[in-house]
């Protein structure tokens, strides 16, 4: 492994730059002089904007990573996939039923999945994408929702899929179907909403709003804290 802060060569879209060895790909691109517009978002591993494909010299295999979370390596050849024209079905969630038929109607290509596992190998979140696609093909919406939960929709699975699936869009469809129709409903929430709409808490709120500054401070400092 290279020493801290030693300059190492990387190739950004084929062009060679020397960058400190401890930087992430994103910071290395900025060090090299790129002012990023595409391929950068939250810079914290949550938004999926900085999907990157790279290869190391003397290795035929393509690797993937988020530019904001992956440290550069010597002789890394990299390119970003800041946008991918994946297919998203048109739907209104409130007009759907949480069934296998819904998935197949909106994304008929789901059945073309070859179970080759390229998606799983391409996921920077290390999700078992192939497994949730298998759940989708069986209509197991809860399974898709659970296994895809940490998806950041970067599109790397889709970019490399030989069956041209848009895994992340199938996944969000399933998560929303699960959240709306299949997850157990929060009864205490429904009750609280109707109480609020009936104005049941208005008096209490007005009373506390009407307190003087001193009364409010006293009440705050004496308030009881719910135990762990």
């Amino acid at each position: 492994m290279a020493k801290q802060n030693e300059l190492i060569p990387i190739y950004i879209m084929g062009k060679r730059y020397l960058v400190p060895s401890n930087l992430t790909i994103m910071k290395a691109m900025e060090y090299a002089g790129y002012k990023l517009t595409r391929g950068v978002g939250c810079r914290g591993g949550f938004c999926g904007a900085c999907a990157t494909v790279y290869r190391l010299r003397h290795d035929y295999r393509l690797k993937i990573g988020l530019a904001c979370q992956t440290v550069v390596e010597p002789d890394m050849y990299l390119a970003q996939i800041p946008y991918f024209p994946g297919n998203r079905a048109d739907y209104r969630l409130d007009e759907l039923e949480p069934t296998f038929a819904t998935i197949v109607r909106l994304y008929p290509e789901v059945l073309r999945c070859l179970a080759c596992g390229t998606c799983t190998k391409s996921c920077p979140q290390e999700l078992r994408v192939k497994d949730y696609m298998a759940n989708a093909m069986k209509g197991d919406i809860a399974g898709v929702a659970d296994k895809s939960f940490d998806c950041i929709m970067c599109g790397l699975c889709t970019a490399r899929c030989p069956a041209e699936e848009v895994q992340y869009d199938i996944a969000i469809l399933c998560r929303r179907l699960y959240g709306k129709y299949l997850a157990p409903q929060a009864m205490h929430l429904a009750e609280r909403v109707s109480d609020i709409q009936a104005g049941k808490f208005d008096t209490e709120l007005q009373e506390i709003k009407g307190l003087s500054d001193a009364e409010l401070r006293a009440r705050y400092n004496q308030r009881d804290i719910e135990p762990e």
Partner: protein
Amino acid sequence: MEDGYTPEMRASIARVEATRPARMSETYPMLGPEAKEALLRAFHPDYIPEGMRELRVGPNKGQRTPHELADMLEGRSYLRADTLDLSRIDIDTDVLVIGGGGAGSAAALLAREYGVKVLVATKLRHGDANTMMAQGGIQAADKPTDSPAIHYLDVIGGGHFTNDPDLVEALVHDAPLVIAWLESLGCMFDKEPDGTLVTRHGGGTSRKRMHSARDYSGAEIMRTLRDEVRSRSGEITVLEFAPAIELLMDDRGQVAGAVLKNLETDEHLVVRAKATIIATGGSGRLHYQGFPTTNHYGATGDGLVMAYRVGAKLAFIDTMQYHPTGAAFPEQIVGLLVTEKVRGLGAQVANIAGDQFVFPRETRDVEAAAIIKECVERGNGIRTPSGMTGVWLDSPMIDLIHGPGTVQRELPAMVRQFKRFGIDIARDPMLVYPTLHYQNGGIAIDPECRTAIAGLFVAGEASGGVHGRNRLMGNSLLDVTVFGRRAGISAAQYALEASVGTLTLRHLEEWEKQLKEATLDSTVCTPMILPDYTRHSR
């Protein structure tokens, strides 16, 4: 995998492990009101006088704000009043939403319910926003032991009794309503098998009312709202990589749209709108006082700059939130957020000797000040190879309290973040130090998200008043959804009645005049749009 920590850190971690069994049953006392006040005055960055200056121009002239924000607010426009042909309208809409984060998306959806034409213009991609990065959760008083009034008390006490009471009332009143709305859109909140929402404590809460979606709470809300907007692609238009750089007015003194810049072609687009909503979020990328930030790349406070130039007043611009637990190590993730949910799950904060020095769930400003004091004054921090100091956040306690596997299940994003650098947070603590997290203040609004300028509405982090001088965890996701919805409704209702006169940029001439009178000859054009992190060697 090789050890992510240095030998010096290992030695300190051994002490943290040694004190852990005793600490497990030890509750560090919370500070009283006077002690808190004294701690903040001595150690919170808001109280460092050299960090701020008085504004010399505009509606908040004479008020103090960090130099970095003052530089933006006192800047000049990229445009001149007479160089852009405003008779050529590129896009005509009823409601223009500037910003495609949580507040902007919620506003667009609610505005559309009134049948009006909606355009969302966003700087980067739809959803590239601080909402996406929020991890810990969203507050709402929906349990039988809780009520909106108790939530109100927590919010206003956490804000040191400076908050706008009407805004706080709106926030806590609508909170359960937005949770129900998000649930109806398919948001997967953490639930018990019987449907009961899982709720936990956060800093400064007196009831367990923090709802979460693992530690992707903001991402779950953001991607759900974005998907719902995309489901309405025929009704809501989204323009990406098209930030607003100036508001337009009409000859009757109303805000009447904005000038957008296509970031790829540098072309300007004139958007005429009957109502305009600023939902541009915060400004962590201005790096106040040199702090690293948890914020997304586009958080440069553009909305504040644009609103200021049309005469909208800002509130609480002398207070920023420094999140107590930003990553201090490894170097590659310095400044990134370590969610407060870690402390919500019971993890304590410990110094180099493995001792507690602060109650782990003080409000964020107090917790941050205590960590700064422990490192700077008492010298009990742990030094990193890059020269930072930090304290331990004892995450392995979580599995000991709640059972093995809890860290992995409840904090998958944090586990992943540290695992990439050889650190297992279920086994070892994380090194943390305060990081710039949130803009407590912003453009002054009323509970319907109106400003003093007709036609201009604001929602989310760009607004100021609801959190006073300190925001509690879980009230920002709540803020963007509550006030995003309210702004959408207000703007749509306004647009249905309003008509737009002749478009003008004359306010820029007026602004230039004010700069001249104040003898400010700034050469900086603002808003910033994006920070420049490039290094040009020659």
